[in-house]
């Protein structure tokens, strides 16, 4: 997936010289996860460069560049580091078009690795997506595979508004089903690891059905798509798994059509439970599908604690917990 993300920036920079890429360790070295490797050598230091360790500065300067007319695609080294930039993202980037009535706009992309599963502890594992979906004016994207990551990132860079692009870091090198004690399947052996050359987009605001089914709907995104798949296989339930891909704008039509068909819904995310994006999804399902529901909407999420180090796999909502929720929702 790292190569797909790099390719998306490469393609975008090649097509549009207004696209610039910067962030901490992003230039000469190519990023701590190597997502920008080679871009400085190919496009020069004016288009891809290292930034000071200053997230509010990275996002704040990107907003100024966007107001000028460039299309910055910046990296926050870990989503956990975005908090100093939160003011710039929520009160500036998100509202610039609105408050100036279109006089100034803010077409920026802010990429950040999200989620745990790499023994990153409290400060390298967080999933702050709900802090972005709560903000009017932002779009929030979470890809789950290389094909989507490339197409969604190109679409995000071409989007006229600010996009938060959360990259599940546990998926950088291969899909992950939550069984941390099993060998990882590399993306090269996975069908969604196939990434087409050149330019293509995956539209923002469209979910994908990863597994068709009739008994129950699972709503997931990012890493949790694979955890859901594992849980479905292990429980043998004929579930429909929806990979949301974009959290805002949300593809409500696909969600509602599926839940009306299955009558059951389990929502899965790695972020903490309380006020997480699952709460929004649960409310929407209840509002739109109440008379089709056969069981309460269930949520499986990270516990409401900081992401611990040693207890990482006790915290992570793995296939066993998801499987239990699936069985309970089926009334088993």
């Amino acid at each position, binding site marked *: 997936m790292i190569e797909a993300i790099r390719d998306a920036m490469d393609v975008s920079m090649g097509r549009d010289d207004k696209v*610039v890429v910067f962030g901490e360790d992003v230039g000469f070295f190519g990023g701590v996860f190597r997502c920008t490797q080679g871009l400085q050598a190919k496009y020069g230091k*004016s*288009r891809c460069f290292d*930034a*000071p360790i*200053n997230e*509010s*500065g990275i996002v*704040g*300067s*990107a*907003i*100024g*560049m966007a*107001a*000028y*007319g*460039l299309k910055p695609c910046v990296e926050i080294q870990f989503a956990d580091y975005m908090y*100093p930039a939160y*003011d*710039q993202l929520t*009160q*500036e980037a998100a*509202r*610039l*078009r*609105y*408050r*100036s*009535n*279109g*006089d*100034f*706009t803010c077409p920026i992309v802010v990429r950040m690795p999200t989620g745990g599963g790499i023994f990153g502890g409290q400060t390298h594992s967080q999933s702050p997506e709900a802090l972005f979906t709560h903000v*009017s*004016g932002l*779009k929030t994207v979470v890809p789950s595979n290389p094909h989507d990551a490339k197409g969604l990132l190109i679409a995000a860079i071409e*989007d*006229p*508004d600010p996009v938060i692009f959360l990259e599940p870091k546990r998926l950088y090198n291969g899909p992950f089903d939550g069984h941390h004690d099993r060998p990882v399947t590399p993306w090269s052996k996975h069908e969604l690891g196939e990434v087409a050359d050149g330019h293509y987009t995956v539209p923002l*605001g469209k979910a994908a059905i990863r597994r068709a089914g009739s008994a129950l709907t699972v709503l997931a995104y990012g890493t949790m798509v694979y955890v859901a798949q594992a849980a479905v296989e292990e429980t043998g339930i004929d579930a429909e798994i929806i990979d949301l891909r974009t959290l*805002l*704008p*949300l593809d*409500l*039509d696909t969600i509602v059509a599926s839940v009306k068909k299955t009558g059951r819904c389990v929502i899965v995310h790695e972020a903490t439970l309380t006020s997480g994006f699952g709460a929004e999804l649960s409310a929407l399902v209840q509002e739109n599908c109440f008379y089709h529901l056969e069981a309460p909407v269930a949520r499986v999420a990270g516990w409401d604690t900081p992401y611990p180090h040693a207890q990482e796999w006790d915290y992570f909502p793995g296939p066993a917990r998801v499987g239990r929720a699936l069985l309970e929702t089926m009334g088993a």
Partner: protein
Amino acid sequence: MADAGMLRFHVPEPEVRPGGTPDFSNVPIPKAGSVPRPEIDVDPRIIRDHAFSIIRVLNRNGEAVGPWAGLLSSDELLTGLRHMMTLRTFDARMQMAQRQGKTSFYMQHLGEEAVACAFRKALAPGDMNFPTYRQAGLLIADGYPMVTMMNQIYSNEADPLKGRQLPVMYSSKEHGFFSISGNLATQYIQAVGWAMASAISNDSRIAAAWIGDGSTAESDFHSALVFASTYKAPVVLNVVNNQWAISTFQGIARGGSGTFAARGLGFGIPSLRVDGNDYLAVRAVAKWAAERARSNLGPTLVEYVTYRAGAHSSSDDPSAYRPKTESDAWPLGDPIVRLKNHLIALGVWSDERHAQAEAEILDTVIAAQKEAESHGTLHAGGKPSTRDMFEGLYAEMPPHLRRQRQQAGV
């Protein structure tokens, strides 16, 4: 080592509080004309003292003296005077309109008119300011229509911002005036980003960042100085030190550094202090800094030493925290009076012509106000629609907002 005893906590206090006699004897005011004017490519280390002095051009006799004088024609000065007088009259009318309930809020510039009015004229077309709420002089001096400003203040049907923003949070790309956020300090690093983009694009346009003394304490100020210094961004970093951040005297933000300009020295940024109530000095220093930026010499930090003679905003009463007569005691005087006296000394102006100009300006402002009010005021007449509230957040309205707009019945 001797026992130092208990630790003591230090909270700075202004010299004088309400009831006391204003005293600015601790503010050293150098003689007009005494600060040298270096070449624009000067090594910042050589002009370190400029961060602790005050560049002044107009002396007590109304004469323009020293190396920063002699740049402007009488016509340019008369235009500058008219801009400042217009801004002051505009403020008075809008402050009154707020008191009459025609809008919710207003912020005036009383005593600080020279800073933005003079600075704007040192820029070129296409340059971009990232202002705070007290730089409407940038718009006035660039010929932005007063009616449009008033429409914004009234949030009426002709408000270019559709009623979405607090009064005075103008936006005009055409006039090089970035949308005012209402947050403090966020625009400072954005200005640096804009300047970086101009350099990345091999453009010739420069940016100007604006901040008040109080907000320099925000981390965005530090971010801006780091980025401006690192990338040698073509930006002028302006600090308007008007002595008061609402009720908080400038010593709370400044701490032990002596001056705000001194903040730039650690970043290797040439840093100057200028008499913010001296139209000629502001214009000369702004020109110097803009030339540096445009010549690939990087950022300049400029501290404008001025005084907020009015309240912070229409919601503020300064008599609660500073002596009522403090403004009269301010040693740098009033910018309009000082330029007026200079023009009289030059023989191109008189008290009679000044009074006549005041009357003309008042007529113009009242006419603009009448026109703006024909489009409505905050609580009466034409106003932006509820539909406008839902629009313009994204380039394309997402489905959830469309649903909410339908629920709202618009």
